[in-house]
């Protein structure tokens, strides 16, 4: 018996090792992609941010590239216009994300309460806006909002409301409405899937105890799908802080409000492709990545400690 054990052990180890390598090999495509498209760009951006391109004289001669260490990052930290954009978007996120989440959860709860057949129809209809590419969606809404050719302004005029969707006061509402239109379907789908995974017996038990449907939704369903809510919220935070294409297109309609550095990414884009200063743009990108990471981390921590 001991003999048999001693000969068997190495072969088991080898088999395990092979299995482990085989298993790990499945992650290679991911890691390759991660290294190529995430790690390498971050390293390159960090390197770029540490240099400054300097001209001399009248500015037409050869430029020199100097190592400037953290100077670009420090300049970014003190850049009032960049942080004004960040503040603008943060305020927008603080208002729009909870509203969009609330709407998504409400729709998901309604679908969960409906029969499967009804739910399937609505689920698809609600998801269609999410399937439309962002740029196309924005163009559709730019037309809908247009005071000259769009249908919304005359519609509101019927009720005596003078709605100018491109005015400074309404521009964020217009962008927020567009984001909600595209985002609710996706968030709803994730929340709905989580709701479907909750064992139905729990609801039966609650009903027997005399809980109303509202009570069940608030006290049982919502707490049980908290993880999904955290996920969709974090995705929304990341997406909203990096908002770019929507305001970029709105810029043509309301250039007096949507300035070239209206949001952090628009500012970065401007520095890189209008001002031609890739070093500083790289530094601002890193700062933005840190802010987004920090905001997500704080949110995670906050929600993990929250009472259930």
């Amino acid at each position: 018996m001991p003999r048999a054990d001693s000969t068997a052990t190495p072969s088991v180890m080898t088999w395990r090792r092979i299995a482990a390598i085989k298993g790990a090999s499945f992650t290679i495509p991911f890691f390759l992609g991660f290294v190529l498209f995430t790690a390498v760009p971050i390293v390159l951006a960090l390197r770029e941010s540490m240099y400054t391109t300097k001209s001399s004289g009248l500015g037409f001669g050869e430029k020199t590239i100097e190592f400037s260490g953290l100077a670009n990052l420090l300049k970014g930290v003190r850049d009032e216009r960049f942080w004004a954009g960040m503040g603008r978007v943060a305020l927008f996120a603080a208002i729009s994300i909870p509203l969009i989440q609330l709407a998504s959860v409400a729709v998901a709860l309604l679908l969960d309460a409906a029969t499967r057949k009804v739910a399937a129809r609505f689920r698809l209809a609600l998801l269609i806006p999410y399937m439309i590419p962002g740029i196309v969606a924005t163009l559709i809404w730019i037309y809908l909002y247009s005071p000259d050719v769009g249908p919304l302004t005359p519609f509101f005029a019927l009720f005596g409301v003078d709605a100018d969707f491109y005015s400074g006061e309404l521009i964020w509402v217009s962008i927020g409405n567009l984001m909600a239109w595209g985002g609710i379907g996706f968030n709803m789908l994730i929340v709905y899937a989580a709701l479907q995974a909750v064992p139905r017996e729990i609801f039966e038990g609650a009903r027997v105890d005399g809980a109303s449907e509202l009570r069940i939704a608030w006290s049982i369903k919502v707490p049980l799908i908290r993880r999904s809510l955290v996920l969709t919220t974090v995705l929304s935070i990341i997406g909203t802080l990096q908002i770019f294409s929507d305001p970029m297109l709105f810029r043509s309609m309301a250039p007096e409000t949507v300035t070239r550095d209206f949001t952090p990414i628009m500012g970065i884009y401007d520095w890189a492709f209008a001002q031609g200063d890739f070093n500083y743009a790289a530094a601002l990108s890193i700062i933005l990545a840190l802010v987004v990471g920090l905001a997500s981390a704080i949110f995670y921590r906050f929600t993990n400690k929250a009472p259930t």
Partner: protein
Amino acid sequence: MARKQLKVAAVTLLATSVTLAGCGGEQPAAPQNKGPVTITWWSWDEHKFLDSTVEKFNATHDHIKLKAVKQADLPGTAANLRNAVAAKQDVPCLVKNFGEVPGLAGEGLLEDVTEEFEPYTKKGLYNEPSYAGAQAGGRYYGVPSGFNPSFMIINRAVYDKYGIAPPKTWDELIAAGKELKKHGVYVMNLAGEDPSTLVNLTQQAGGTWYKVEGDTWKVDFLSPESLKAAEVVQQLVENDLVANQTYQDRPALIAYFDSGKMVSLPTSTWQLGNYELNYKKSLGDWQPIDLPQFVDAPTFVTNAHGSAILVPKGCQNVKEAVEAAVWMTTSKEAVDASYQEDTKQYAWPGAIPDPSPWVDSAVPAKLFGERRAEAKDVILKAVKSARDPWVVGPNYTGVFTELQDQWAQIVTKKITVREALEHMQKFTVDDLKAKNINAQG
């Protein structure tokens, strides 16, 4: 073990990628002794414009072959060229201008072609105002492609309806605007994203925002000429005399121009065909008139800032590129090759001393109705009285986007033109100094 291997693989890959990215293919110039040299030309013009020019050039030249590469649009051309120059690979030798030469030269995108181009300046091929647009700091970074004559077209039917005389000065235009406003008509359109009216007025007043003094840029957004231009814009905006239709939605814009609610357009030859093609209601109602003048202007002057065909940094055959571009901008063959059957028009030959043989074709048949014959004199007068005092600095690309933001606030009355100019003065000087460029102001 598996983890370790992966780590090694990842680190190796990372190292290779960084190394690869670090050495962006600096290739030695290929020897060009044998056969014709191929010059690649980037432009976002439609194929119907590019192809006839390329065909004609190749039919008349043995030692150079021209090859047009169609670009999607202006921003696409800019992005592609910035990438090509940075990568030092597949750099074209000629590119349609997508900015101001000094701004692009300041970015390091252009090749100094002074040595190759200067001999052509002695041959009398170009008109005087054309040269400045291809220069930066006194050197050539492209081949002049000339300027478009500036004049105005007005919807005479509406002017007549309200008994208003065509304006000869900017003050008269403002007065006309006040009269038209009573009838719900705007005298002009100032798009919120396009500050070119302010730029053009400054040029017409003889001003410029940058000047070279020794080896230093002297920046002056608040010069008397600039303030004179600012005053005209301020009056137009302050009194609500102008519409603010955006250029982004072209069909809506043209339909608006056609509607009779906006009645004066500073314009040029290249835009006339578009109006002719798309106006429905007002065709025949328009009249070409001389560009309004500043009241105290000593002589009749039109703004005329020239453009250039760019020669990018890294072009391997500068001499041949310049030769091809000179042919494109000055030869009769090139102008003739630009003829379009559908519009019956030639591309405007803005660089040559005498464009009069082509004026007639530049005037569309129906736009001006019975007043068509007036157009020829208006255009030729604009060509003759063209002046180009305009100089911009190496940071103008970025300065212009800042100006766009300021302009949007001007036309929506959030700030005055003077406030915008004060801001631009500080922004421009600070930006130059931050780039380690000598600047004063």
